[in-house]
């Protein structure tokens, strides 16, 4: 984009930024707008039918699920973030990254594994019946395939969003603030409740909204557990009732949910704006948790790792031992390469787009840019299938229009240029996961005092220069966090990949899904484990880098 290049070099044309930002945001908003446009298609009597039968269940299910997962992710994410950020206890260094591991688990996989373990026909209840001589109905056992079950499953794999962002915020908090608190006599508990937690609120809101958006978009888990939500409703209306417009309208209502969620998040951030300075970063002495308190902290961090990662992984391994000999072939390496490559490229693209949009908004705030960026960031809460349809329709329309035009004018058929390419897949990822990067970038930028920009600009730096020399170094940890989440999310992503990919192109998630959807969980285990393992390496690498980017970390090491 030459226009962009100009502004970065010259910096003298304020009109370019809103244009570049607006155009990019609009392009990324295209799928969402495509879906929303169905609002203008009359859907007839299906709505009447839905309102009379299932719609109340869909709404109630989604609301309860969000409430439950909200409480669950905060309850796990905040304490673990605080403990690993500012306290010292046995295993702390290990937990710093181990707490991220559940992120590598697709929610539906963990749901399958726990169902395998805890269901009526699972080994636990089987053993119980054998030992006691009871039969089904003689005893009570927590039913896993229920709304509370879905809440637990989703919380176990989504809390890392809260943990990541909360921990980054705790680490970023000006040491001086906490030290001042400490001088005034506040201990770990008071320091946490009166200083750190309120200061971290914007980051918590971001992490929570990511977890909730992912919850709204989930289809695999709720469908398997038989929980009615908006997503199950969309697909039932579309596939079962065969009414695409009504399904798209349900999706548009879902967008309404998301919009509210984002407004709340924005509002919670606006009420208090916190900036952290560039200086004054020194090593902050950790609260030493000794003896029993230390081990209690270890236990608190171990529980989510054990239930969100270790136990399901063990169950998968048990299955894989039986099926791996047939399941792992030469093609398996190709699948890993495909998954890894796609995830890396998508993470980078998404981050660059988020930087462009986030930065554009900071430089040239305006209603058009603001709304376009907002809409572009909504993709995260929309089921991947719906996004994919929102990509297919405009892309194919563009391809076909270009083809017709080229044939009319030059007598050449261009065919489908965009549809069915990896480009379409990457675009869908960018739309779906932009929100992750964008929220991280905005949260990061939001903590940098605008006065610093002004100072840098008055000293002669261009906007690009401010980004490169001032903001990027300050944002390093936040940006790596964004990269990490998108990478792992793309590894797990299924529906958009499934629908948009070119011929003969598969990923680990596709392989896992195909076998799992045919109720061949054991056969799916090797590919599922590969997704998890592939996700671990970057998790470890990046969490180390994030730790190092902490102010004052050098003297701590």
């Amino acid at each position, binding site marked *: 984009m030459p226009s962009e290049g100009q502004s970065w070099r010259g910096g003298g044309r304020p009109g370019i930024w809103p244009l570049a930002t607006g155009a990019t945001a609009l392009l990324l908003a295209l799928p969402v707008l495509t879906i929303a446009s169905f609002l203008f298609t009359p859907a007839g009597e299906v709505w009447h039918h839905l309102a009379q039968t299932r719609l109340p*269940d869909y709404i109630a299910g989604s609301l309860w699920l969000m409430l439950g997962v909200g409480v669950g992710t905060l309850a796990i994410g905040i304490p673990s973030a605080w403990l690993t950020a500012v306290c010292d206890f046995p295993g702390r260094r290990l937990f710093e990254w181990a707490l991220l591991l559940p992120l590598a688990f697709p929610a539906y996989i963990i749901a399958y594994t726990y169902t395998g373990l805890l269901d009526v026909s699972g080994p636990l209840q089987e053993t119980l019946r054998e030992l006691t001589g009871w039969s089904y109905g003689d005893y009570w056992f927590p039913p896993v395939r229920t709304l509370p079950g879905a809440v637990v499953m989703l919380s176990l794999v989504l809390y890392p969003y809260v943990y990541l962002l909360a921990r980054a915020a705790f680490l970023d908090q000006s040491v001086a603030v906490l030290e001042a608190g400490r001088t005034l006599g506040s201990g770990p508990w008071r320091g946490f409740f009166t200083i750190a937690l309120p200061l971290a609120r914007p980051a918590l809101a971001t992490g929570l909204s990511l977890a909730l958006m992912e919850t709204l978009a989930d289809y695999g888990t709720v469908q398997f557990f038989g929980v009615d939500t908006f997503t199950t409703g969309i697909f039932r209306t579309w596939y079962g009732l065969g009414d695409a417009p009504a399904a798209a309208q349900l999706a548009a209502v879902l967008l309404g949910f998301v919009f509210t969620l984002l407004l709340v998040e924005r509002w919670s951030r606006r009420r208090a704006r916190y900036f952290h300075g560039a200086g004054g970063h020194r090593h902050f002495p950790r609260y030493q948790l000794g003896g029993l308190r230390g081990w209690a902290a270890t236990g608190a961090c171990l529980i989510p790792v054990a239930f969100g990662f270790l136990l399901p992984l063990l169950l998968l391994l048990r299955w894989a031992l039986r099926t791996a000999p047939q399941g792992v072939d030469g093609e398996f390496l190709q699948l890993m390469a495909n998954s890894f490559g796609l995830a890396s490229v998508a993470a980078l693209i998404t981050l660059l787009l988020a930087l462009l949009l986030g930065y554009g908004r900071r430089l040239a705030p305006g209603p058009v840019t603001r709304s376009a960026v907002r809409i572009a960031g909504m993709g995260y809460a929309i089921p991947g299938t719906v996004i994919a*349809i929102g990509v297919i329709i405009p892309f194919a329309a563009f391809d076909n229009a270009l083809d017709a035009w080229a044939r009319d004018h030059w007598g050449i058929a261009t065919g489908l240029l965009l549809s*069915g390419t990896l480009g379409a897949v990457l675009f869908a990822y960018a739309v779906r996961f932009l929100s992750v990067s964008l929220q991280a970038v905005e949260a990061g930028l939001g903590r940098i005092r605008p006065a610093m920009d002004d100072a840098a600009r008055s000293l002669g730096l261009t906007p690009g220069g401010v980004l490169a020399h001032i903001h990027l170094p300050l944002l390093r940890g936040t940006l790596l966090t964004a990269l990490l989440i998108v990478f792992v999310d793309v590894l797990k992503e299924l529906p958009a990949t499934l629908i948009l990919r070119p011929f003969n192109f598969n990923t680990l998630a596709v392989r896992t899904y195909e*076998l799992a959807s045919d109720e061949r969980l054991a056969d799916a285990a090797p590919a599922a484990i590969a997704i998890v393992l592939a996700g671990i390496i970057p998790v470890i690498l990046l969490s180390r880098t994030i730790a190092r980017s902490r102010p004052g970390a050098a003297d701590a090491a």
Partner: protein
Amino acid sequence: MRITVPSTLAVAAVALLLGGQAQATEVVNLYSARQESLIKPLLDRFTAESGIEVNLVTGKAETLLQRLRSEGANSPADLFITTDAGRLQQAVAAGVTQPIHSARLEAAIPATYRDPEGQWFGLSVRARPIFYVKGKLDPQQIHSYADLTDPQWHGRICIRSSDNIYNQSLVASMIAHQGVAPSEVWAEGLVANLARKPTGGDRDQIKAAAAGQCDLAVANTYYYAAMLESSDPQEQAAARKLGVIWPEQEGRGTHVNVSGAALTKSARHKEAAIALLEFLVSDAAQVWYAETNQEYPVKPGVPWSATLEQLGHFKADTINATQLGEFNAEAVKLMDRVGWR
């Protein structure tokens, strides 16, 4: 045949690589709702025998259909494969298919398992009978799907969610036979007898029955047969605890459905696509279906797998599968109304 720029370039590149002695290899492009592991081995065999390359994208039927519709006349797909006749009918209704006239296909596939106009062809058959826990009840007590609504089965039946196409097709077949109102009464009675809220897949219903949560389960034959053949001893043991009841033997016959394929309207490799279809109904391919996925061959006279033989022969519903697609939406609404989640 229209020539696209990318494919021209690709052909040119291949020709250069092979030093000019190559001819453009024949290809056929598939959009398949049947998953890769259940079709790729057959496709590879086809390529080995015919020299025709097969390109494959798998996915959910509805989304592949949407892709077909949006891509329109430029769609690269030649064949659309699904695991349910209702979906094929939806493709026909969407206008993305075209009829085929092939004596071989018509000879191999009985008329009930293909579209009367040749818009789609069934490739394999599955049945949806009732399974009972041996020793818990006398299978002679149940002769029809309607018997499942008898109050004596209160809290004793497991069946999956009505989100699933198999249940939708089952109810659609009832609507086709007896109309909406009696089907709704039936669904209401069934829901009243359920042992639990419908969750999980077909295998889960069988496992729940084996574990004692219910005494009767409704499931597709290939799931049950695959469990009998499973490498997991527990799955095998669970399946062994159950026996099969073939409903409607004195009436319309047990509900069956097909997996099948349709030629797309945009197909550019029509001959290769028809060759592939004809290959898929050859004896060798039909035996593979039966042995690997425990499905019934669509072609009469092809031997069943030993496991399927064990379940016994039965009278199948002869309603044309086209009707399953026609009544699908009606079936879903009906199930919504009776609270079959």
